[in-house]
């Protein structure tokens, strides 16, 4: 016991989560992606094995190497059992008599970066539905557990389990391999990969879950995956740089988006000293590097909009640029969020009258954000209408944070009256 300083070892935060995806990817590379489920099981068993030893004997000097060794042994044992079951009693007898039957297993050690990119591309195979891709990416590319995925995607555990099960069945039946596509196919698949990473980030950034920790971790995982794409020549495309820029700009406002009491803080009311300057600078560098080639992706447009939002001072130039970018975004990649945000830019450039006109055309009568926006626009000229809109928003709001925000807004409207 003398060599072990009990209780002083610190495990690297998220060590098991990180090792989970590395071990799973390594096993899949050695045995094939059709063994994804077995690989996940083995990875989990390694942590239980660690839990049975480390607290008593101390954390090994190289925890990752320990876990990989255990994973390898467990995989070999499983293969042996499988083989003897296939060979039946005949094989069993021969083995007992010492005749051959030994399983020859050569396991390649992890090539971490390579493995993880292959896994990401496999998970984003077009044969899998978008929602399967996101759930599966969280599981095998990020190492989240079922509970954590359910929490992040606001889905039931059963639903998540089913989704993952179906995705793994699909991988088997479609014969999806753990490999990086080449040439044009790589660029094609990259679109899917970027959409999945983008969804991961937006799940975290706009997610309705109240668990703040999960939200930010989702965003950071998305950033990590996008970053891994910038490290390989073939995948380091301008739109990947643009996506990184977008993430950096958004993430720079994390500390300012919520008040100490956990309520949303409106962009215009954020304490800009809480914005992370380092991330803003990083984002600008990525955006600069993204500005090559002819093709303007939605990530370019969204990153450019996010860039202007990092400017603290409201200048005419700022909002005119933002409006122009939203016009382009709506033309090429229309979405509800973009439409609502565009109206706010119209208001900043042309005033409330024109903005209300644009807003009313949208008729997004199921969205609480639509009515929250209307309330802001109406406030200056028609506060009764503003209050009616806020009450409608309150009926439609789904999260405590949104409801609290609307309540606060209603109160401030009353005071100003």
């Amino acid at each position, binding site marked *: *016991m003398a060599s072990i300083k*009990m*209780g*002083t*070892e610190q*495990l690297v935060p*998220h*060590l*098991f*989560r990180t*090792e*989970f995806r590395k071990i799973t990817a390594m096993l899949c590379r050695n045995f094939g992606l059709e063994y994804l489920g077995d690989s996940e099981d083995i*990875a*989990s068993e390694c*942590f*239980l*094995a*660690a*839990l*049975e*030893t*480390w*607290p*008593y*004997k101390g*954390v090994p000097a190289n925890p990752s190497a320990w876990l990989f060794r255990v994973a390898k042994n467990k995989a070999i044992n499983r293969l042996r059992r499988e083989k003897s079951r296939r060979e039946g009693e005949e094989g069993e007898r021969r083995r007992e008599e010492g005749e051959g039957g030994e399983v020859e297993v050569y396991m390649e050690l992890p090539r971490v970066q390579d493995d993880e990119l292959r896994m990401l591309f496999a998970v984003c195979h077009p044969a899998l539905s978008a929602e399967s891709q996101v759930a599966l990416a969280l599981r095998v590319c990020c*190492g*989240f*557990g*079922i*509970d*954590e995925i359910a929490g992040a995607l606001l889905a039931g555990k059963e639903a998540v389990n089913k989704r993952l099960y179906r995705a793994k069945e699909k991988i088997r039946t479609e014969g999806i391999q753990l490999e990086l596509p080449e040439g044009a196919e790589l660029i094609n698949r990259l679109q899917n990969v970027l959409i999945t990473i983008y969804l991961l980030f937006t799940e975290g950034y706009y997610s309705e879950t109240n668990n703040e920790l999960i939200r930010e971790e989702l965003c950071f995982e998305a950033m990590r995956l996008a970053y891994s794409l910038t490290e390989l020549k073939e995948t380091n495309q301008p739109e990947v740089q643009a996506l990184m820029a977008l993430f950096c700009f958004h993430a720079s406002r994390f500390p300012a988006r919520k008040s100490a009491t956990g309520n949303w803080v409106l962009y215009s009311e954020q304490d800009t000293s809480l914005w992370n300057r380092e991330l803003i600078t990083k984002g600008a560098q990525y955006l600069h590097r993204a500005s090559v080639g002819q093709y303007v992706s939605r990530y370019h447009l969204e990153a450019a909009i996010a860039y202007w939002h990092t400017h603290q001072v409201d200048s005419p130039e700022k909002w005119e640029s933002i409006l122009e970018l939203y016009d382009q975004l709506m033309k090429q990649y229309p979405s509800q969020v973009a439409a609502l945000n565009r109206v706010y830019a119209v208001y900043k450039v042309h005033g409330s009258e024109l903005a209300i006109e644009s807003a009313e055309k949208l008729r997004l009568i199921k969205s609480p954000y639509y009515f929250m926006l209307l309330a802001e626009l109406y406030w200056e000229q028609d506060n009764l209408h503003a209050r009616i809109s806020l009450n409608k928003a309150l009926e439609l709001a789904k999260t405590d944070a949104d409801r609290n925000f609307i309540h606060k807004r209603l109160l401030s409207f009353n005071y100003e009256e």
Partner: protein
Amino acid sequence: MQEYLLIFRHEDGQKQASPEQIQEWMKQTMDWIGTIAAKNKFVGGNGLPFEDAKVVRAAAEGLLVTNGPFGDIKETLGGYIIVKADSVEEAVEFAKGSPVLQGVGNSVEVRKIASGDGIH
């Protein structure tokens, strides 16, 4: 000063723990043992995997081999530590800190280890 054996049993067979959750258990277990070790009262211990656990029982019809210590209850984790304590009460206090006890139905059994000096 006597030595006591603290045996813990964990009967949560169904739950699929996430890597993050297992790491949290690991940390709690290390912290628990760490506080005992800080008092210089930790002697040793080990995990007892339930995988391939068997019980051999003497039954009327002969020896009976069953799975696991209890058969019916699906256990997933077990282990023991040996501590030094002045009294069984002190050993029980150590046992109460075990993170295993966060799960309802789990248990820590406290047993004195015979020291062979005829005092116990």
